[in-house]
């Protein structure tokens, strides 16, 4: 490569400003003149007018049309010329023989009107034989009828057009919404390389060329190396002639360079329109000069129309089929969701439906507390970041983008999997989304042998060529995915409504449940109160009067009598304690959990100091490791910890030296605390009963207790979202564990 080459590549956008409809010149395969509509006075004419008249062109300017085609010709044609309507496409009025006598040649006389002017083009006749147009069209229509795909449709149209025109190569290409083109159909011989699949950016066809193609449906360049012929006016400084519809209109030098770089010497392009907009082109190319007669060009125009009609129908059918398909997938997802009552699992377990539903490469269901993915997606961290961004931007209903990175720059990191995003918000309160991802288009283009390679660069390099166009196209679609179709976005919105419905239904059920719970809670509260009050009072009285009885008669009672009274008192006191603990237990269930940062080390130390009376003869070795910080309700956690530590002390009291270990560690999303003793342990067969209320694994006379303690521990921990479990070996000791959700900070 020549690195010192400072030649600026042609800025194709600058072509946007070139006034291509008024070139002031024509191609040389014919003669052009403009006459006044009202009296047929010749106002402008191409310099080569003399070739059909034999007299100098300038002599005819300002004169009557009869000077060119004779009085007889004018009389013959005037009626039809007067009927011309401005803006209508050129008509071939008839074939005429013109020229200096002895050198007469045949011309197609093509005429159209442009406001006050009639433009007459005398296109020299093509002598070559062409197929019969009617049967060609019939053949095409027959084939299009059976075509099922866009590719079939395009290829058949290309093949029929080539058969009709005899070009070395016919391309059928369509523009997307942004004007980028893709070659979808091709038919060719060995003279020209394949361009099938080639894509090029919108800038390849400048804006005003696009407009010109929209109004004038057929352009033809028989020989790229033509010598342009100037158009003369009767008077200098006359407004240049508008040649929009003129067959002979000379084309832009930039376009000619493009053709030469493509090795196409002759070309023809026919516009494919839909709803009045340029939708695509049928483009014919030839390696050598080639002329196509008017009738054949007219047939190609019909080809383009037939193609457009058929494609519209096909698209509608496909859109319809897609809608039916989407609907079926949607129904399936809906059924699963409704059945499960849990949309997340419902969606994730039907990954195929979830993805094909909107034709995505990957999907994710994300909420505050989880992020699950299927297919090809960015990382969960990236998805979470994306969800937070969506939420912060207020996109709580639906959001879709074909080039995510342009609005959310971090998406540049994962453009290959998710240049396209379709997201539906399922919560107004937090960043809850179902997302679908589409990969970058460039990555999805299948190059089948890279057609760009088959094009040899011209000596000295190419400034503009299909290869460069492809490179440019790649740049324009960098970071872009295929567009989300209307049907897909609509379906996603419907899915959102369904999900919100499921969530709402759940919320309503929850609200019902909450109301019921609140009611039963307050019932429980009054129950607690009456138990507390009504049960405690008689127990108090039993104890009080028994005490008084003991005081007043103790000197008269036998040892046995005194034991009876003691038992009455003890039992009543025990009943009182049971009532108190039961009430405390029920309070633990009702009390609101107030979460703060809790230092378990401090807590454990305080409990330990209170636990053992200073005069105790027990020998207890405490092994307390530094415990990780947790979040929870200080009071409740103290109660749980105290319970476990009391148990450890209690059940190890027969040991000469009790060893109580308290350890803690973080594991996954949990912090796990363990209290281990070397006491009597328990039989693992009964481990399930351990945490149940009023469940005891030892006889009362062995170990006192109410059977509420561990139930309370479990209740407290589960209210914190944690778990409780235990392990033991009879006679060797026990370990009690509880876990708490790990602090996020």
């Amino acid at each position: 490569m020549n690195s010192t080459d400072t030649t600026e590549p042609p800025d194709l956008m600058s072509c946007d400003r070139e006034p291509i409809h008024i070139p002031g010149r024509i191609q040389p395969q014919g003669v052009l003149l403009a006459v006044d509509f009202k009296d047929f006075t010749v106002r402008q004419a191409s310099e080569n007018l003399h070739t059909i008249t034999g007299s100098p062109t300038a002599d005819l300017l300002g004169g009557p049309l009869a000077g060119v085609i004779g009085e007889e010709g004018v009389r013959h044609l005037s009626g039809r010329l007067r009927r011309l309507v401005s803006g209508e496409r050129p008509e071939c009025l008839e074939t005429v023989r013109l020229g200096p006598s002895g050198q007469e040649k045949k011309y197609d006389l093509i005429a159209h009107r442009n406001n006050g002017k009639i433009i007459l083009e005398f296109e020299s006749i093509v002598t070559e034989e062409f197929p019969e147009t009617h049967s060609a069209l019939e053949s095409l229509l027959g084939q299009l009828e059976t075509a099922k795909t866009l590719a079939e449709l395009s290829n058949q149209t290309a093949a029929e057009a080539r058969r009709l025109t005899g070009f070395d190569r016919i391309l059928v290409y369509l523009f997307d919404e942004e004007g980028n083109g893709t070659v979808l159909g091709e038919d060719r011989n060995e003279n020209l390389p394949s361009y099938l699949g080639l894509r090029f950016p919108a800038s390849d066809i400048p804006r005003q060329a696009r407009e010109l193609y929209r109004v004038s449906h057929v352009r033809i360049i028989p020989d790229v190396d033509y010598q342009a012929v100037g158009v003369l006016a009767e008077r200098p400084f006359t407004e240049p002639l508008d040649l929009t519809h003129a067959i002979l209109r000379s084309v832009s030098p930039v376009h000619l360079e493009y053709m030469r770089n493509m090795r196409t010497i002759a070309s023809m392009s026919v516009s494919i329109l839909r709803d009045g907009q340029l939708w695509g082109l049928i483009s014919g190319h030839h390696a050598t000069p080639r002329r196509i007669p008017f009738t054949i060009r007219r047939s190609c125009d019909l080809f383009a129309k037939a193609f457009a009609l058929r494609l519209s129908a096909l698209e509608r059918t496909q859109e319809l089929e897609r809608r039916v398909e989407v609907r079926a997938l949607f129904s399936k997802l809906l059924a699963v969701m409704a059945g499960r009552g849990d949309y997340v699992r419902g969606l994730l377990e039907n990954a195929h439906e979830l993805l094909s539903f909107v034709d995505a490469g990957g999907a994710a269901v994300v909420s505050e507390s989880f992020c699950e993915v299927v297919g090809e997606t960015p990382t969960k961290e990236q998805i979470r970041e994306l969800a937070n961004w969506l939420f912060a931007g207020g996109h709580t209903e639906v959001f879709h983008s074909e080039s995510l990175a342009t609005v959310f720059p971090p998406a540049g990191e994962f453009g290959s999997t998710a240049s396209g995003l379709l997201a539906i918000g399922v919560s107004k309160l937090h960043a809850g989304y179902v997302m679908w991802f589409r990969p970058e288009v460039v990555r999805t283009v299948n190059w089948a042998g890279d057609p760009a390679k088959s094009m040899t660069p011209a000596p000295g390099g190419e400034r503009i060529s299909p290869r460069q166009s492809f490179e440019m196209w790649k740049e324009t679609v960098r970071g872009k995915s295929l567009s989300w179709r209307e049907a897909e976005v609509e379906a996603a919105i419907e899915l959102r409504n369904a999900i919100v419905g499921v969530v709402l239904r759940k919320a309503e059920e929850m609200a019902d449940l909450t109301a019921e719970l609140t009611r039963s809670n307050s019932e429980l509260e009054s129950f607690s109160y009456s138990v507390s009050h009504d049960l405690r009072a008689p127990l108090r009285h039993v104890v009080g009067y028994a005490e008084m009885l003991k005081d007043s008669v103790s000197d008269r009672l036998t040892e046995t009598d005194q034991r009876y009274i003691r038992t009455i008192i003890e039992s009543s006191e025990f009943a009182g304690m049971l009532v108190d603990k039961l009430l405390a237990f029920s309070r633990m269930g009702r009390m609101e959990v107030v979460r703060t940062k809790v230092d378990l080390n401090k807590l454990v130390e305080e409990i330990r100091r209170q636990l053992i009376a200073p005069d105790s003869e027990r020998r207890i070795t405490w092994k307390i490791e530094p415990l990780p910080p947790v979040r929870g309700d200080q009071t409740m956690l103290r109660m749980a910890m105290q319970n476990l530590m009391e148990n450890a002390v209690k059940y190890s009291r027969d040991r000469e030296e009790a060893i109580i270990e308290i350890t803690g560690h973080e594991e996954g999303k949990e912090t796990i605390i363990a209290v281990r003793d070397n006491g009597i342990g328990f039989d693992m067969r009964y481990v399930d009963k351990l945490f149940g209320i009023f469940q005891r694994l030892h006889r009362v006379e062995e170990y006192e207790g109410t059977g509420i303690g561990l139930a309370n521990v479990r209740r407290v921990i589960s209210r914190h979202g944690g778990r409780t479990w235990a392990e033991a070996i009879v006679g060797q000791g026990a370990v009690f564990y509880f876990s708490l959700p790990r602090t996020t900070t």
Partner: protein
Amino acid sequence: MLKPILLAEDNPKDLELTLVALAKSNLANEVVVVRDGEEALDYLFRRGPYENREHGHPAVILLDLKMPKVDGLQVLEQVRADKELRSVPVVMLTSSREEPDLRKSYDMGVNAYVVKPVAFREFISAIQDLGVFWAVLNEPPVGSVKPVIKK
């Protein structure tokens, strides 16, 4: 010159146990017993059957929280609203700490509360502590009457 203790208690058994507890604490104060809130207010405001009682306020008022007609809280409210009675200490006696009105009594300026324990010995010591604290240790405000121990 000890002021009396006013005890408002509707349950006869609790009343008897409380009186025993007070007796065991060897307080010199007279204990005036009333059986509901209304009677307590009659005593405090010298009306009805107590119209002609001597002037003076009790050393401490022991109020059972739940009583017929006018409950402990309502008595407390009127005591705290009265300019003269306002400074008299009030101890609330409750059957359990689950009492929903416990918090209210604090908000209304109760000086202490006692959850009547099931264990009698604890009850005696709680009453003793209270009696000693409020009836004996506190300086009797001006206007107190000489105690007459009633049994």
